[in-house]
């Protein structure tokens, strides 16, 4: 019983103070990715950050998406094929699964939205229908440019 208690407390102590928080990460930030250099080139990795405002280039005909992913310090260009999730837009948190190419572009094969813990009502006068519509319109306009 005492041995079991020591093992359990030890395991919890390790989880809390053992620096596991540095090792177990679901995704790397652009700063961490770039710091790792050639080690992470062309290997499956997850990259997470924010969609840099104004950087989204979406071609609705070829379903081709390019944008800058930023963590506030460094920025990585991401290329992805196919329609992004509904909530994809400027300033949104995103996690991409894919590979960081030699050309410095991250080829994303799976794009996920990382929603924050913040929940707020829309701005005055904005209805849910308008929100969805606006979401798609921004994407369409970006495709034309």
């Amino acid at each position, binding site marked *: 019983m005492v041995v079991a208690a020591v093992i359990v407390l030890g395991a919890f102590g390790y989880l809390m103070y053992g620096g596991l928080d540095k090792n177990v990460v*679901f995704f790397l930030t652009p700063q961490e990715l770039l710091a790792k250099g050639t080690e992470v080139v062309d290997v499956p990795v997850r990259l997470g950050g924010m969609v840099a405002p104004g950087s989204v280039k979406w071609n609705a005909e070829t379903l081709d998406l390019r944008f800058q992913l930023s963590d506030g310090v460094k920025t990585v260009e991401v290329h992805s094929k196919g329609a992004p999730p509904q909530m994809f837009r400027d300033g949104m948190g995103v996690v991409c699964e894919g590979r960081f190419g030699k050309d410095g572009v991250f080829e994303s094969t799976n794009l996920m*939205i990382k929603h924050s813990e913040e*929940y707020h*009502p829309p701005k005055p006068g904005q209805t849910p229908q308008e929100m969805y519509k606006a979401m798609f319109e921004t994407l369409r306009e970006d495709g034309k440019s």
Partner: protein
Amino acid sequence: MSTSARAGTRARGLWLGVGAFALVAAAQAWAIASSPADRDMAHLQKIMYVHVPAAWNMMIAFFVVAIASLRYLWKGQERDDLLAASAAESGTILTGLTLVLGMIWAKPTWGIWWTWDPRLTSTAVLFFLYVGYLILRAFVDDPDRRAQWSAAVGLLGALNVPIVYMSVRWWRTLHQVQSSPQTLDSSFTVGLRLNAIAMMVVLVFFIRHRYETARMEREAELLQERAALGGRGGING
């Protein structure tokens, strides 16, 4: 327990059940009617009113499992074992509900049904640990051995609860960290708390109901045993 006392307990249990589900219906209706659309996910946010209360209450249920299991190992009383089993069963249902609703929310929000991030993985582990606990109980016939083994597994499973809760803070996950009144607009908080309380009443009802059933099952088992041994007071006695 006398027959009339049992009938009284059952009637009280029935009213608790009716009240619990009426409270859930009222809390849901109020939360859905009173809260605005979220600025990112519009009315998809409403899933929060079941997903989050289910997650909170599953933690309460497994906390009850831990306390009852510890008490059983200490005092060896059968009622603690039956209470742990009832709480574990209710907690498993709530964990399943949390996972399923989380997935339904994740598909339109994150763009995926599932991913192996620390929060999702630890919750899935919690779910399967307690499914294992319930299977273990069904497979062991000897009541003392069943109680001892399941108390050990029940405790082990409950140790996973703080890991599930802290996973979003200890590790970098896709799942967001816990919202607080600072990050959750006040128009959502009252509905969330109301539903958490309603869900807790449902949890109390579930645990109580399962406990009463378990007591009756045990009494029937004992009667059968006595009858098989040819003693008096059995079914054929």
